[in-house]
């Protein structure tokens, strides 16, 4: 438990606050000292902890895979190469089952999504106080910060910015593939001429706004649901870890139980994000 926080709600709030760096109207370029200041910074602020840990995860993923890729040969694989090949084959077969077009991007994209999200989610299993406490020590000892003002959340996927960052990138790809495969007119036609269509020109004209509304909702629901599903699962998991951490000695068995269950969630959520990305992209690139 963070000893410097007297109340449970303070402890929880402290744990759910990102380390935010940005331009504050009063303080200038600085780290936010509390949630209010972070909110005041508006859009032009950055969550340093989210960025740092997500990039660490990505670099670890790419480092490990690059190492295996360099050593990859058609001989008998061993250890690391085995694991990497297993993952690559798993992703490759998932992509081939769902996406029937030809694309050099989709399979590596799926692999990156799966491994990156998995590693970021994995940070959720690190006991909730370890790294924030370490950050607090470093912050106060080396930078002279007030311990109450050092926030540090290490799980990037519990930050909605991270999940939306990914899902919006996927959304951009969905639109790109739709336009590339069907042409701009085909894409617009898909948005306006389905699901209701009529041979009567006037009736069709009336139906266009209805179709557009329905299809836009369908389209926009994709990135939103992708981002919120991952965020919601991990945020809730994190919150439960924090609540368990408040229980004193009882936290030991409970933490173990929840962590065990959480292993399932982190893999599952990474897989779901990957599978849905493939499905959305295959929908985007197929004619109806």
């Amino acid at each position, binding site marked *: 438990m963070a000893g410097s926080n007297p109340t449970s709600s303070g402890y929880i709030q402290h744990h759910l606050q990102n380390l935010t760096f940005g331009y504050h109207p009063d303080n200038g370029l600085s780290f936010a000292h509390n949630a209010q200041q972070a909110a005041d910074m508006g859009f032009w602020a*950055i969550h340093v902890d*989210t960025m740092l840990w997500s990039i660490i995860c990505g670099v670890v993923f790419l480092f490990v*895979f690059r190492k295996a890729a360099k050593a990859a040969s*058609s001989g008998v694989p061993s250890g690391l190469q085995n694991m990497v090949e297993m993952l690559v084959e798993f992703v490759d077969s998932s992509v081939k089952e769902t996406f029937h077009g030809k694309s050099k*991007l989709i399979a590596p994209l799926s692999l990156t999504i799966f491994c990156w999200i998995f590693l970021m989610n994995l940070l959720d299993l690190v006991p909730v106080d370890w790294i924030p406490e370490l950050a607090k020590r470093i912050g106060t000892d080396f930078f002279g910060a007030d311990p109450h003002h050092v926030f540090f959340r290490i799980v990037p996927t519990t930050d909605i910015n991270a999940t939306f960052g990914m899902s919006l990138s996927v959304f951009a790809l969905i639109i790109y593939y739709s336009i590339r495969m069907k042409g701009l007119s085909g894409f617009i036609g898909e948005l306006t001429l389905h699901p209701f269509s009529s041979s009567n020109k006037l009736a069709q004209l009336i139906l266009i706004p209805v179709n557009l509304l329905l299809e836009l909702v369908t389209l926009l629901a994709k990135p939103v649901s992708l981002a919120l599903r991952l965020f919601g699962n991990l945020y809730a998991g994190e919150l439960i870890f924090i609540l368990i951490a408040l229980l004193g000695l009882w936290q030991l068995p409970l933490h173990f139980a929840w962590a065990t269950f959480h292993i399932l969630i982190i893999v599952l959520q990474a897989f779901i994000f990957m599978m849905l990305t493939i499905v959305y992209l295959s929908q985007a690139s197929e004619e109806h």
Partner: protein
Amino acid sequence: MNLNLTIIGQSIAFAVFVWFCMKYVWPPVTKALYERQKKIEDGLNAASHAEQKLEEANQQAEQTLRESRDEAAKILEQARTRSNQMIEEAREQARAEGERMVANARSEIEQEINRAKEDLRSQVSALAIAGAERVLESSVDEQSHREMLNKLAAEL
């Protein structure tokens, strides 16, 4: 939980990671996988090919074995006939030889007998003449009686 610049930073990081993965991770690994698949396929093909060849070789060997066994049996049979034939021939020859020898011996004996008869004949006539000469004391006209005595000897 504010939406802020992080979202853009995350998107950029994501794009960079995907690009790196697409460029430097995916191709070598899939290439290695493909190559291994090909290798295994080739190996399996070679194995089944070899199996087939072995089967063929076995059949060939069996065939050869069967042929040589037949050959051997044939040769054996031939040898047996040949030996029988030879024995038969030898027996035949031996018998012919024996008969010939017997015939020779017989003719020789006959000649011997004839010669002995001839001898006897000539000696008998001389003896008879000598005997008669003694008996008669007087000389008998050898010329006139020889003819008669010769006739007598031929009758012997």
